[in-house]
């Protein structure tokens, strides 16, 4: 034992003696690169990951970016474990409203990087998902909002004007029923009028939210009490219920369809209209994803009104972005991380995300950029985004978001499966929400 310790001591002395010479040697003249670790989805088809590796070249290898990738639900598991275990290996992480509200104590506030003048250059509520408790923790990479898509060819086949998508609930019901049919005559409906994703977890809540805001309601009031079970909430839920069961023009199977599956059926030409994120547009242009009958035949606009007297439309504005962690701050690499993030969210990267995947750019200037507004493959989407901005609604995010989401969603599922009266389900959800917000 003593021998080994002596051995270690000798080794240490040798290292100390040799080090100055080694440092002076030409082969080691270059400093080791600064490593920034980013936790995000995988790099394939990911414009930000591509930009990050470009950044390595731009800095001549001074900065190395390690891309720690995981499926996006895994990011939350990883963050939870890392933070609970006091881990310091992550410098930058992908985040969105639901995560920022939970993990912000482990993020480094960078309000000083976002002067008021800078904030105005972003789209409505773009900073909201990287902000919590009055501070800003990161950089938005793309904004998220819902659009209304319709298949013009199917409109024509049904004798509807392909240039006139439904603008009100009544028009939606009328078109929707007309577009629902049994094409091959085997007694089973094989073309549905409309689709909204209502899968377990966030799609269900998001869908309810969009109808709720259009009914003039809200999830919580200004003091944080649940109010989504009032008559406006009931009206919203009834609107969805009726489309499924009264007008029978949404496939009840939509209750098990997530957003990707909803895009899939729309882009296969099996559903005539859908509400979807910007990714719906990108996929409708992609020949590996959309059928020939669909490509070039899709229109995009703002969501139809539930009651034009209340509000013409309401999408749910949110965003996803990157947050800088406290451990990055402790390592003293905030400036470097910020610079990397600036590069990753530059105009060129935002454009690539928009064109390839339908990730809507957070930068306001792009929506007035003639290069984009005149591009026929982007113009309708840009116009719809600008128009949706006239009816801004913040996507619901609150602390304890996952718990709230699960509580509301499970009651809505019960209601829309016909297992519970709508009002009773809403009341039960509101009680659960109140209990969660009160804390244990």
């Amino acid at each position, binding site marked *: 034992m003593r021998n080994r310790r002596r051995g270690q001591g000798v080794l240490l002395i040798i290292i100390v003696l040799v080090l100055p010479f080694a440092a002076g040697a030409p082969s080691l003249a270059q400093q080791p690169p600064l490593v920034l670790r980013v936790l995000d989805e995988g790099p394939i088809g990911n414009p930000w990951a591509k930009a990050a590796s470009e950044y390595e070249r731009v800095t001549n290898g001074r900065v190395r970016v390690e891309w720690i990738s995981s499926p996006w639900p895994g990011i939350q598991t990883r963050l939870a474990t890392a933070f*609970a275990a006091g881990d310091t290996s992550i410098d930058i992480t992908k985040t969105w409203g639901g995560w920022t509200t939970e993990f912000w104590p482990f993020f480094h506030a960078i309000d000083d990087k976002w002067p008021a003048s800078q904030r105005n250059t972003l789209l409505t509520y773009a900073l909201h998902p990287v902000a919590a408790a009055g501070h800003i923790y990161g950089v938005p990479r793309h904004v998220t909002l819902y659009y209304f898509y319709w298949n013009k060819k199917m409109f024509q086949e049904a004798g509807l004007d392909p240039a006139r998508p439904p603008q009100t609930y009544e028009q939606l019901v009328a078109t929707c029923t007309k577009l629902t049919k049994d094409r091959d005559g085997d007694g*089973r409906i094989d073309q549905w009028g409309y689709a909204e994703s209502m899968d*377990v977890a966030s799609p269900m809540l998001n869908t309810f939210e969009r109808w709720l805001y259009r009914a003039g309601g809200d999830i919580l009031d200004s003091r944080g009490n649940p109010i989504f079970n009032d008559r406006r909430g009931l009206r919203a839920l009834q609107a969805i219920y009726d489309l499924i069961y009264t007008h029978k023009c949404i496939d009840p199977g939509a209750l098990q369809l997530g957003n990707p599956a909803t895009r899939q059926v729309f882009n296969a030409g099996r559903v005539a209209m859908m509400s979807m994120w910007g990714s719906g547009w990108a996929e409708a242009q992609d020949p590996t994803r959309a059928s020939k009958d669909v490509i070039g035949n899709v229109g995009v606009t703002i969501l139809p009104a539930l009651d034009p007297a209340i509000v013409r439309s309401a999408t749910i504005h949110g965003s996803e972005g990157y947050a800088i962690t406290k451990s990055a701050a402790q390592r003293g690499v905030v400036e470097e991380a910020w610079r990397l993030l600036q590069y990753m969210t530059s105009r060129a990267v935002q454009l690539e995300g928009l064109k390839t995947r339908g990730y809507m750019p957070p930068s306001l200037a792009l929506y007035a950029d003639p290069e984009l507004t005149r591009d026929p493959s982007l113009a309708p989407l840009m116009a719809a985004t600008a128009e949706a901005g006239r009816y801004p609604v913040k996507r619901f995010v609150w602390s304890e978001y*996952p718990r709230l989401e699960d509580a509301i969603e499970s009651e809505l599922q019960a209601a829309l499966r016909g297992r519970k009266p709508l009002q009773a389900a809403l009341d039960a959800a509101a009680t659960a929400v109140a209990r969660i917000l009160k804390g244990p």
Partner: protein
Amino acid sequence: MERAHTRRRLQTRATPFFLLSPALALLIAVAGFPLIGAARISLLRLRLNAPEQFIGLENYRRLFSDPKMLQSLGITAMFVIGSVTAAVVLAYLLALLLYQDFPGRRVVRTVVLIPWALAPVVNGIMWKSMYAPNFGPLNDVLNRLGILSQSVSWLVDYPMASLILAYLWKVLPFPTLIILAGLEGIPRDLYEAAEVDGAGSLTRFRRITLPLQRTITLLTVILMLVDALHVFAVVDILTRGGPADRTMVLNYAIFRTAFRYLDFGYGAAMAFALTALVLVLTFVYIRAQSEAALATGR
């Protein structure tokens, strides 16, 4: 002479511990210590956005006043009983088939392992696609065969059955393999002798296979029980415990509490409660089995 004898006895006494040492070292280092850590966590109020706080058995007390807990227990029981019963019965049939001597047996034996080796996430995506309402293969096949006349939303209307099927499909090779290995261990001449005596194949199965396979069956049931209680990936992708919590098995509820709600203390308490429950169940099962064995005189 005397000393040699003592040494020999000492050696014999030390041998089992010598044999056990590598396994024990690993288990203590990699699982034992973390287990103590987890037990400690179960006594804390550990949230990310607040300092940790020792609250004694509060988390365990909370279990008893949590209405979701009881509901989840029932759902877990349904899932476990359904899937373990089906798995053991089907595994027996499959193992008996693969035990037969026929050309191509080795390839078939390998092919049946494929579901087990399929990545859990791909298994989930696959079944989600199989169960797709309206346009999924399951609906399509049943419609073409004339069994269904309308499409079914499997995950909405039959979430538990759909979950069990998807789970069963993936794990079936596991019990099959164990049972098959057990069958291989029975000397074939026993069957030949019985056949000469004129015993039919059913009689041979009942009189030779089952009794000799008793411990193997017990082993299979216990391993499947544990596996089914720890079901995760297929729930996460197919139903996420829904719709309306109808498939909220305990293991998933624990994951959700700890990693989604970030309530680590309560999540750990739930995990230990589940473990205790499994231990009790296993004990009861083993005891019942040995008593049955005593009663039949075997």
